[in-house]
């Protein structure tokens, strides 16, 4: 890696970074109040990109792997917040349908969704929640009665169910019930 270039300021003036110190309070998951003073952060773009649950799941899994590999070389006191938030977020996301997803399924899903004319937020919600009933679609898609006919809603449900993998146990149960039904006829 290239040598870090550092410059020592010979002037006696205070660091002219052009920002003022501001105190920021934050809350930990346990409800403790953390207080810190920091140079004010400039927020460039509040919503640079929406992230799906699956992307965050991947990121946290990779981060956890990295930290495990690098060993316990970090002081635990500073990392406690990160550990807490990572654990809680992973616990929550692992209960959502995104744990069965992969980059290929997400890509397939988005390509299939192109024809349905849904907004980015609606596609994201479908991806995160994997609806199985028509009422759920009505919740997530705004004004679905006007924008989508019943057949479109059905086809949307079909696409979601076929492309996005669901709980494998449930799917086995459903297919078992189906074969039973067919054999009894």
């Amino acid at each position, binding site marked *: 890696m290239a040598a*870090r270039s550092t*410059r020592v300021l010979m002037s006696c003036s205070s660091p002219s970074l052009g920002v003022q110190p501001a105190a920021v309070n934050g809350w930990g998951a346990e409800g403790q109040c953390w207080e810190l003073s920091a*140079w004010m952060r400039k927020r*460039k773009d509040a*919503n*640079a990109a929406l992230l799906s649950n699956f992307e965050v799941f991947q*990121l946290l899994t990779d981060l956890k792997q990295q930290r495990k590999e690098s060993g316990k070389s970090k002081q635990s006191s500073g990392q406690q917040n*990160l550990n807490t938030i990572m654990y809680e977020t992973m616990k*929550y996301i692992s209960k959502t349908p995104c744990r069965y997803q992969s980059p290929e399924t997400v890509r397939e899903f988005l390509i299939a969704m192109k024809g349905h004319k849904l907004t980015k937020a609606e596609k994201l919600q479908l991806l995160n929640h994997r609806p199985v009933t028509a*009422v759920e679609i009505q919740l997530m898609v705004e004004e679905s009665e006007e924008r989508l006919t019943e057949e479109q809603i059905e086809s949307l449900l079909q696409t979601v169910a076929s492309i996005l993998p669901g709980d494998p146990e449930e799917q086995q149960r459903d297919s078992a019930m189906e074969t039973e039904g067919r054999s009894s006829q």
Partner: protein
Amino acid sequence: MFVLVEMTDTVRIPPWQFERKLNESIAEELNKKLANKVVYNVGLCICLYDITKLEDSYIFPGDGASHTKVHFRYVVFHPFLDEILVGEIKSCSQDGVHVSIGFFDDIVIPPESLQQPAKFDEAEQVWVWEYETEEGAHDLYMDIGEEIRFRVVDETFVDTSPTGPSSAEASTSNATEEVQKKEAPYTLVGSISEPVLTGTGEETAKDWS
């Protein structure tokens, strides 16, 4: 639910960490500063996504540490308006149902946004939704630990920075009063006043079809 926020900050690396790779030190410092903390008008910061740009590091007189301006992207929990979320009921009180998502606890569903008609059962301290079908009235108890699907209706950011000396004087005069009530810096208001928003199973959907 999650957004990527581009931010800029100056990171201070103390001299005893100079032997480590700069990127690693900076990532660790940023996570130490921001992870699990609420940034005003942005949201609850989760973890660092990546570092976009590192500017030159400076050492200032009197301080041996290096200061580096960093442009980076952070994963932030900030649900958009009208988003559907799934949470767990933490508690019920007169001012509504308190829901938690595990990593974020300050979600309230006020009584007006509950499925009407709803009443508060004082004995069990739970909200009850009485819905009527042809067979008669059924009571749906919103018990603690139950999964609930709700729509985000509003969000509030409160600046919890410490106040100046003038208000500190006023508070010392009320020293006998309890400790000042801690305000949550980021609260979400949810609503379940739509069909199929209570519960996440298919049973509720079948009731409505």
